């Protein structure tokens, strides 16, 4: 057990590393780091803002020596409570450590500090013809460090994959204060265990990431967006499956259900079909000929499945307009009730229709308002439960308790991209057998025998 009492002597030592300005201890400051995008809050005892890897090395040594906890934090937008300091201690906040260290156009990679905001990285890359393909719903504020720790997926995962697929290397401070550099500058590399992948998705439990080398891609020049409304959700899902079987890989293949359609229409008024069961939004990118050719095939598939309305963009502005239907989804429905919980189950894509039907049935049975957004091509479903009381929160839990065995039973996962944290810890047993969880705990123990980093995580 570590102590979680930071006395004034320890604060002075922290100030010795970071300077007075970058160590915060007032009640007000502590409250500001007690929350993230999840509901539960926990107060830290101090917050520090590193600027350099060396400072973190010293901090970790201090934590081991004086036995206090450390919890890393980017922008605090994760939806599973993995950045709140569950057992107090010090929050290591990366928001000021956000330099871009290198952009290499010849080998198409960039080296950035962990606090770099994804959208800011994209801006830095403007004019190079390159881009970082991971696009989260939260890209405008999420940091690369947070995205690495949660292996974030997002909107373009269908074509481009997830964060893990773009990490070439990491600089990591280990729980004993040692600094290591993982990876190489090539995509192919089979020397030793793949530590990049181990740290990626570890929810900050194995090390503190200070620098990330990300692979960049050539930015496609042309975009086409198709928006189809369906009166029957089954037809929409059949279209998804046929698209996936066509050999064409859309950049995005998104689905929204009737509640989302109505919420968006009420809020942004863009003329969606309010009686439709769902819409499918498909984005194709690439060179002009390819996009034209692919869109014909996709159009035929969509039309074959009886859309009640079919739209296709003819210009970049039109594409953007159609995207508004999808991008306004979260915000529009979040307005209905004070609490909005975004779930994140993911199933093999052939099971999409029956899973969505089950979610709708369960929401109805328990009397909870639910709106579904899905990265349908990935089988990644985000049922959003809109709640206004503790009682309703319990109902949402009851729904998940009924849903989870089904999800894991058909080979799906309880979280496709948001992470486990404290939010989904209670469902962990549906997916991980004890032997697997024990192995993970042993890995944690090997890296962090004293349990300094992110205590109270999904492993505890």
């Amino acid at each position, binding site marked *: 057990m570590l102590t979680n009492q930071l006395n004034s002597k320890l604060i002075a030592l922290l100030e010795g590393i970071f300077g007075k300005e970058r160590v915060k201890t007032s009640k007000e400051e502590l409250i500001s780091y007690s929350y993230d995008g999840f509901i539960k809050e926990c107060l830290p005892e101090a917050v520090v803002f590193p600027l350099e890897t060396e400072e973190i090395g010293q901090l970790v040594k201090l934590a081991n020596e004086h036995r206090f906890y450390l919890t890393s934090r980017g922008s605090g937008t994760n939806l599973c409570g993995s950045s709140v300091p569950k057992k107090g201690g010090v929050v290591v906040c990366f928001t000021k450590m956000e330099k871009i260290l290198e952009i290499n156009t010849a080998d198409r990679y960039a080296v950035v500090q962990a606090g770099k905001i994804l959208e800011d990285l994209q801006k830095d890359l403007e004019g190079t013809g390159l881009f970082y393909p991971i696009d989260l719903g*939260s890209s405008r504020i999420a940091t690369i460090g947070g995205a690495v720790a949660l292996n974030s997926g997002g909107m373009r995962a269908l074509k481009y994959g997830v964060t893990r697929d773009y990490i070439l290397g990491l600089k990591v401070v280990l729980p004993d204060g040692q600094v290591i550099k993982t990876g190489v500058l090539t995509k192919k590399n089979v020397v030793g265990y793949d530590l990049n992948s181990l740290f990626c998705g570890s929810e900050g439990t194995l090390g503190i990431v200070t620098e990330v080398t990300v692979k960049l891609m050539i930015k496609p020049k042309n975009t086409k967006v198709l928006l189809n409304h369906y009166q029957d959700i089954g037809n929409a899902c059949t279209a998804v499956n046929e698209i996936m079987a066509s050999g064409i890989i859309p950049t995005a293949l998104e689905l929204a259900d009737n509640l989302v359609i109505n919420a968006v229409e009420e809020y942004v008024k863009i003329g969606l079909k309010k009686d439709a069961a769902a819409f499918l939004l498909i984005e194709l990118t690439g060179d002009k000929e390819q996009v034209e050719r692919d869109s014909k095939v996709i159009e035929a598939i969509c039309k074959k499945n009886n859309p009640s309305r079919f739209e296709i963009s003819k210009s970049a502005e039109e594409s953007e307009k159609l995207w508004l239907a999808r991008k306004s989804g979260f*915000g529009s429905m979040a307005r209905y009730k004070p609490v909005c919980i975004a779930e994140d189950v993911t199933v093999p894509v052939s099971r999409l229709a029956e899973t969505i039907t089950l979610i709708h049935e369960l929401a109805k049975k328990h009397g909870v308002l639910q709106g579904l957004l899905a990265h349908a091509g990935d089988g990644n479903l985000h049922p959003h439960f809109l709640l206004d009381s503790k009682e309703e929160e319990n109902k949402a839990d009851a729904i998940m308790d009924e849903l989870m065995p089904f999800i894991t039973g058909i080979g799906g996962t309880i979280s496709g991209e948001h992470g486990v944290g404290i939010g989904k810890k209670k469902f962990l047993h549906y997916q991980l057998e004890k032997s697997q969880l024990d192995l993970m705990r042993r890995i944690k123990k090997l890296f962090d025998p004293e349990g300094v980093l992110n205590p109270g995580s999904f492993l505890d």
Partner: protein
Amino acid sequence: MKETAKIADSCLKCGFCLNACPVYKELREEIVSPRGKLRQIKAFTAGELPSDKIIRKVLKNCLMCGSCFKNCPSSLATPHAIQKLREELFGKYGHDFIKRGMKYVLSNNKTRALSALWARIVYNNFRDSLPFDLPAGALTVKNMPLLAQPLKAVDFKNNGNKKVFYFAGCVDKYVFGDTGRCAARVLDKLGYDVMISEDEKCCGIPLIISGDIKAVKKNAEANIELLTRQYYDYIVFTCPTCLTAFKEKYYDIFKEDGVFKNKLAELEPKLIEITGLIAKEKKLPQLLGAAGVKVTYHDPCHMVNSLDTVKEPREIIKALPGVEYVEMNPELAASCCGSGGFYHVYFPETALKLGLKKVKNIKKTGAEIVLTACPACKLQIAGSLKRAGSDVKTMHIIELLDRYLK
């Protein structure tokens, strides 16, 4: 207080507002972010804070730019919650000495005119002969503009044209009087019958945003009386912030005063920002001669976040024959210049950083002139450019139009 608590309670903590907040973007500390401010407000109303010392400072550290509201998926009125709490804290602490001085100057048209006169004589004569420079908010004295002749009252010609009351506001009346004169000339050329009045009072924004809405009530009443005294087709503003006083803040002041609230509501459809009015004018291009200049445009926060007037200024600029327009803000989102009420006086460092960032973006466009539509932005941008040693000129759009009137 219930209202404030409700806003704070409704926050989803999604963080969308963080990178939209100019203060957060500079400082990168959650406590000053809109999400952080709402959480502080929640803690304060729940009595969880040891004192109000820090929250006062946190709430002060806000430009009232409205960007958090504009970018919140739930459209939470965070600036309003901040304002309400500022009002509560004002009740306890009153003004600091800067605002006490302002209150004295701005509450009364005589003191306002006198102060401006005094400032013009002393400052205009000595600015350039000062052997040293002095800080003035985010800028320095030598980077501040000289004060122009104040704007004089103009009466209607009663020529049968549409009647426009031009509400100039303190800055375009006493600092940038030329902007006011340009506005009057352009409106006249467009066929409006223009009136400017000596009786127009300070809209009160500098005091309102410090939480002192009581002090502004008199000015607000006088302004509403003035504007309802006779018939006007339009009441036109060159300062978007003054306009938001009428459109947003005055409703709050007269929440419990049915008479004034009704008068205000009647006025509402006539209140218009000048580029919003002019953009409707089909004949504008015919009135303008060729302008061989390269320009860019800075979106004032209140134009974007409160008035939704984003397209109009661009339409007008592009209506100028021969003008080369370079966009500096393709996202069409506000990115604050750092002026914001009296923010630059209280937080000069952050304001200066924001100003210099703006300078960088302006320089990138290669424009000779940066246009804007707000006197406070003009002051801050012109000063920042001068401070950075740049010779790019800063103008209100209306001044450029006036320059090229045939």
